[in-house]
């Protein structure tokens, strides 16, 4: 079986060492390189063509988000897992917009890293459970204070189904096949969902899904 090839990017050697230790305990994972900053990560991503990049957000010379943007634009087949200390929406949304598939909190890296790498290598998303919790807490608090309705309650069961599949990274065609619907119908559902939830773009949709614990 082919091993999943991983590039580790963090400006702290200690962290990289710890991550490498974790990864190399797994028989199906291998670390193919380590990068010290954003620029080096972009260069190594081009030359090494890893399957997964585990990357810190706060790095010198091009931060993780900028680097992720450049990498996913140049090579969409590479899956990026962002490593961050922040569970705030701003970070998660920026990471998603930059094309990251996974978002891992440093606190829980030790327990979730392996799951995250496997998930993104498999084409799925992965978010630290703590992130979902923080996002949901913020959302619920805001609803409570403003007295507004939870937009999720407005969705029909079918729309919820489609929301989950889209958030997991499925294309309209995949969704249509899975649910035995026409692509046109799926598209209509999708735009209804976006409108009901007041979302702009896939990253916001994924964020919403993460918040509701629909995907993790």
């Amino acid at each position: 079986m082919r091993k999943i090839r991983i590039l580790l990017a963090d400006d702290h050697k200690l962290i990289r060492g710890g991550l490498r230790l974790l990864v190399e305990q797994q028989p199906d994972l291998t670390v193919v390189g380590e990068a010290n900053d954003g620029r080096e990560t972009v260069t190594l991503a081009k030359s090494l063509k890893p399957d997964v990049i585990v990357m810190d957000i706060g790095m010198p010379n091009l931060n993780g988000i900028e680097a992720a943007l450049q990498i996913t634009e140049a090579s969409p087949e590479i899956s990026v897992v962002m490593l961050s200390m922040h569970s705030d929406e701003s970070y998660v949304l920026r990471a998603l917009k930059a094309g990251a598939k996974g978002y891992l909190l440093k606190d829980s890296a030790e327990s979730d890293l392996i799951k995250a790498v496997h998930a993104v290598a498999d084409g799925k998303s992965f978010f630290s459970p703590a992130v979902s919790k923080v996002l949901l807490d913020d959302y619920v608090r805001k609803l409570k204070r403003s007295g507004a309705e939870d937009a999720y309650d407005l969705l029909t069961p079918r729309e919820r189904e489609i929301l989950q599949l889209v958030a997991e990274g499925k294309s309209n065609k995949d969704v249509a096949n899975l649910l035995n619907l026409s692509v046109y119908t799926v598209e209509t559902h999708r735009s209804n969902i976006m409108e009901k939830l007041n979302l702009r773009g896939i990253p916001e949709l994924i964020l919403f899904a993460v918040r509701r614990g629909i995907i993790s």
Partner: protein
Amino acid sequence: MRASTSQNTVAPLPSAFDAESSGHSKKVRRLLFIAFGWLLVLLIGAGTDALFSVRRLDRASQEVSQRFTAHNRALGTIVVSVRVYDDQLERFLLQDQLQESAPAPVDITTKIAAVRAALANFPQDRDPEEQFLLAAMLQQLQEQETSCAVVLAWRSDLRQQRAYQFIGQQLIPWRTRIFELTAQVSSFDEHKLALENLAVAERFQSLESRLVWLVSLALIAGILMSLVCGWYILRLERQARQRYQALARSRLDLESLSARLVEAQEEERRSISRELHDEVGQSLGALLVEIGQLSKLISPDDRVTQAQIAQIKSVAETAVKSIRDIALLLRPPMLDDLGLVPALEWQAREISRRSDMEAEVQSQNVSENLGDETKVTVYRLVQEALNNAATHAGAKNAKVTIAQNSDKIAVEITDDGHGFDPERQRGMGILGMEERVRRLGGTLTIASAPGKGATVKAELPLGRIEAP
């Protein structure tokens, strides 16, 4: 003190400056006061003197002319009475030859008594010479009285015989002598009048020259004093200008100092934040990973050790969390990682999590390439305003709007708290905001009133690079 254009020259301490100049100006003030006093005394003195002198002179000249008139009148009375007596006596003596009605001897006696009365009535303020002449007249009169008594006693034939002889040899010479004497007195009086008038004129002249002298003195003193005053005013003006310049300079110094202070504070925060995050935070992060490894190496059945490891892990996690919180407060990496708007959104959510206030951010057209100073200024401004709203004003909602156009960026933070009086309550926070905004050449306005919430508005000009 001398004005200095050198930038390195430190302005003299205001207290020393004041003490020196106030001692000096006190002396000058006292001198001026004394001089003005003298000038005033001089003018009043000269005026009073002139007034009294003129009045005195006037009185003297009046006295002189009154006296002259009195003497003159008395002389006239004497001359008239002598003439009347002389005429009556002559008519009495020649009554036989002229065959007219003759006056009675009693009348004659009355007339000569009138002469004596006129002499006695001469004013008493007599000079020795006048006295002498009057005495001579008196003597003549006495002789005449004696002769008159004899003549009146004559019988008719004797009178006819001797009348002409008596008139020719006695009466006429006597009359002539009396008239000579009165003429002498009169000319003496005239002479005296002339002398006295001269004396008055002399006194008047001396008053005139004294006045001229006093007025010129006052004039010179006045000119001198106005020169001194002019010089003093110029000196005061120069001092005021210098003081103002020193003040302006020190204010400028103060401004640049406080600007440097803000800069230094920001730099320091950034560096401490980076140290905390990079060194301590990362080490602790690595420690957590190692602890996880360790826990895996130990059999799950070894409960005691596993519990111990869990304990260590939770302590390390707490440390990581608090260090992160401190680092975030000092210098949020969001500004560098995400840009201004996401950082503001983070901040709004962060304060919503920590307090009872819900904060919301709305942005419009905000560039991602804002300069670091602009970003930090807006960030700190919003941070301060939101913190004030949540902790001091007890606000429930706050709204941050940020909009950018071609040459400026405008931020507005409004809350529904209980407000304050911005004129009175200016804490360090507001001063800090003002300082940061002024440094970038922007404007800050704070509108609030008790019970009316608060609105903080700032406009910052943008550099060319930052324009969208």
